[in-house]
């Protein structure tokens, strides 16, 4: 697996040679530092622990300081793991956007925007009551029946109801790498990416 941690910057659009305009998302990806190499022998699985984004030393606890010191790097905000990395890396190595090329298809993982407590119409796509008259009053967006009465005398598990919406980990598959600005660590992927601007995303292949 190839992978890098990035920060979503925002969206723009790009023209190809034939004049077709494509919406794309700008992601500031890396440089990331390898902070730990996990192997089958020592940890039971092969993975690379990767860190991204500086944070202030006063916000770093002692254990973290030592952990980052081993990789000879400053304290980082975000630490993630990539299983079965495509090439061998040692502790302290950096990973940059160079691992990807323009035209690659990548998966992007992010956390969607939180929507708060939402009703069933927005959260599950219910169509609502549909009529304002014929005895309906104040229940245009109500969920309707949630099950039988005497049998089964309970509400089935997983019944779709109102509740907290968003803030889920979502993976968008098969986004095209449109352009890479290696000197600024920017990568432009076609289409949209979950989360708000400034949120952490993982780019994998």
């Amino acid at each position: 697996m190839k992978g890098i941690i990035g920060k979503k910057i925002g969206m723009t659009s790009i023209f190809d040679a034939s004049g077709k305009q494509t919406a794309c998302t700008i992601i500031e990806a890396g440089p990331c530092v390898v902070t730990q190499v996990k192997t089958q022998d020592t940890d039971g699985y092969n993975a690379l622990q990767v860190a991204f984004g500086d944070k202030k030393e006063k916000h770093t606890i002692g254990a973290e300081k030592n952990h980052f010191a081993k990789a000879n790097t400053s304290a980082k905000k975000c630490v993630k793991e990539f299983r079965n990395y495509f090439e061998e890396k040692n502790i302290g190595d950096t990973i940059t956007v160079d691992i990807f090329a323009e035209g690659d298809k990548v998966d992007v993982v992010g956390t969607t925007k939180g929507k708060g407590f939402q009703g069933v119409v927005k959260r599950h796509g219910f169509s609502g009551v549909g009529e304002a008259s014929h005895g309906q009053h104040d229940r245009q967006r109500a969920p309707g029946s949630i099950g039988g009465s005497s049998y089964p005398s309970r509400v089935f598990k997983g019944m779709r109801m109102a509740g907290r919406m968003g803030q889920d980990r979502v993976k968008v598959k098969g986004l095209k790498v449109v352009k890479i600005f290696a000197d600024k660590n920017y990568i432009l992927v076609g289409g949209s990416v979950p989360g708000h601007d400034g949120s952490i995303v993982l780019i994998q292949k």
Partner: protein
Amino acid sequence: MNAAIAYVHEQLTGKKEFPKFKAGDNVTVNYKIIEGNKERIQSFRGDVIKLQGEGATATFTVRKISDGVGVERLFPFFSPNVESIIVNKSGRVRRAKLFYQRGRSGKSARIQEKKRAIETA
């Protein structure tokens, strides 16, 4: 605009330059048309009724009356299909978006030409 997005826009737009114009100006846009393998230039002349957006995604809308029918076309500034823009006249208008032109025709749809300041030696 966010500094990072501004940087990307700068890289994408390159050195393409256009004459300055505003809403109310009369412009001719020469744009490429691809028919099969052939490529030719077509021009569209009319009044600019809107300038929108910034950076690499900025667009403008040109309106003309063609055979008594109003025709509007939206051009992205940095589309590779926009060959050149020529400013024919600059108009005297009091707003940035001239959507009121859509309800007008004939004499009332005319835009007064801006009088240039007289240069004194």
